[in-house]
């Protein structure tokens, strides 16, 4: 029988985790309540929906045994999807909270400009045919077993040729047809095409291979598997004593500073041709 927290909805089946939760979360309950009351009475509360998450709530999720518990950090990003503020320093000043323990989120940076075309259809197709492009769970699991078990290619063909595999239920009967299905498994694999370049070092010409970096970024951002671990805006997080917490890239200074300083002189746009010209000028000066 899981134990439920007295002032929250977290449930714990292990006594150790429950005791830790009581000690960490409810030990300073008076401070939490005071912050909540003060925050609720603040006139700017409604303008900053995502920021009423206390920083230590993320730790509670880690202790919780309850798999159905929603991740509190998840709805921080979800709420800000609907906010349509302009990103500038003026709005930044408004988001600064008098509470030292309240995380600050750079306003407007998570704003979306449109919906992805065909995304809903893609989702509904995925729900209707979860094993697509495989016909059944059997076909998908068999392919997973082949790949994760690092079964040799010739052994896969041998498996089907000897009649061990049920080709009708798996929808593939050889390594070739399995390869075709695996390529169709990732709909965004077109982003990961390889290009070939040539390096000439004066003595010989060598080939090298590279991908388009922007396409790699598109590929990673499009992966549904990472949807819950994406962060789209820099944060400033504080502990209950008001001390800044640096834990992730989005809680550090680099991202925040770059976001609030769009007109930094060192960030002026340069073309590669211009850069190249400077480079060769300086090289000539130092060789002479």
């Amino acid at each position, binding site marked *: 029988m899981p134990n439920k927290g007295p002032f929250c909805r977290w449930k714990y089946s292990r006594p150790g985790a429950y005791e830790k939760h009581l000690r960490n979360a409810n030990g300073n309950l008076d401070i939490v309540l005071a912050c909540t009351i003060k925050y609720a009475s603040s006139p700017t509360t409604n303008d900053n929906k995502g920021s009423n998450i206390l920083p230590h709530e993320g730790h509670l999720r880690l202790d919780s045994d309850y798999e159905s518990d929603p991740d509190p950090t998840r709805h921080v990003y*979800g709420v800000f*999807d609907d906010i349509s503020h302009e990103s500038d320093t003026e709005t930044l000043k408004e988001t600064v909270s008098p509470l030292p323990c309240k995380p600050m989120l750079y306003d407007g940076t*998570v704003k*979306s*400009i*449109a*919906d*992805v075309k065909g995304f*809903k259809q893609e*989702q509904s197709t995925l729900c209707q045919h979860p094993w697509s492009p495989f016909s059944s769970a059997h076909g998908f699991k068999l392919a997973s077993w082949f790949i994760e078990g690092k079964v040799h290619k010739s052994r896969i063909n041998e498996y089907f040729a000897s009649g061990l595999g049920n080709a009708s239920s798996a929808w593939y009967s050889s390594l070739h047809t399995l390869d075709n299905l695996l390529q169709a498994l990732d709909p965004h694999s077109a982003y990961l095409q390889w290009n070939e*370049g040539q*390096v*000439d*070092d*004066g003595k010989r010409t*060598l*080939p*090298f*291979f*590279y*991908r388009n*970096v*922007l*396409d*790699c*970024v*598109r*590929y*990673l*951002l*499009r*992966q*549904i*598997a*990472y*949807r819950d*671990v*994406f*962060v*789209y805006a820099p944060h400033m997080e504080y502990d209950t004593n008001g001390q800044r917490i640096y*834990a*992730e*890239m*989005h809680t550090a200074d*680099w*991202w925040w500073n*770059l976001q609030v300083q769009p007109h930094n002189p*060192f*960030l002026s*746009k*340069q073309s*590669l041709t211009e*850069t*190249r010209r*400077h*480079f060769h000028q*300086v*090289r000539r*000066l*130092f060789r002479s």
Partner: protein
Amino acid sequence: MSDQTHLTNFSGVKKAWPVYITLGNLLSGRCNSPTSMEVLLVALLPIPPKLSKSSKADQHQRQINADTLRDVFELIFASLQDPAHDGVPIDCANGKVRRCFPILAAWIVDHMENVTLHGIKSNSCPRCEVPAVELSTNMKVYLVRDYAIYHHYDYEHWIRETDHADITPESLGIRLGQNVFYGLNRVSLSDLHIPDILHPVYLGLFKHMMDWIQGFLKKHGRLEVFDEVWKALPPYPGFLVPKKAYREVMQWQGKEI
């Protein structure tokens, strides 16, 4: 991130230089997991042969190699130039299109690759202008390197104007005009150098401390006892139980420490 990798000893000594990429938008707990597949291979580069410092022809060839490397990285990152400054709409995993600014934020490599990529001397810091003789001291805070100045100014003119005749490229520990990342929009070159946990902490501080402890234990004849205790360490979540004594391990990997 990148790391020159030894591929084969047989059929000729083959080496490759893989370059990887990941996103800073991903939470580190997931990003660091090897099975999450969040790190993509961006390029496989050839490694130029090692050249001696004495020969003038080799010095010329080294310069050509550095220029070639710069051209290769220029080609790889050319697609980021305009989007880093103006933004580009990108489809996101939650079904929204966002205006994104893909910017190179960090480059995680060991020191010798920093030397190659940033165009510094092997005994120089890629971040600040600390002289080589003061590297192990903590006496003074030095200026953060401004690679833009290194590239944009005639050094002799700059030295004359600033009245610092003792400041030369050699004293600053740089080989001028060789930072392969120079020219990328919105990239702060001195911030690219990020100390990773393996090299500065585990292989730097921890190894230095353990060498000191080993010497101390050897002097007092307690090294064998230490080895037995080391091998008898109990398992713990996230801790890999050592199978060998500490001094028997020739090369440490991140997962072992």
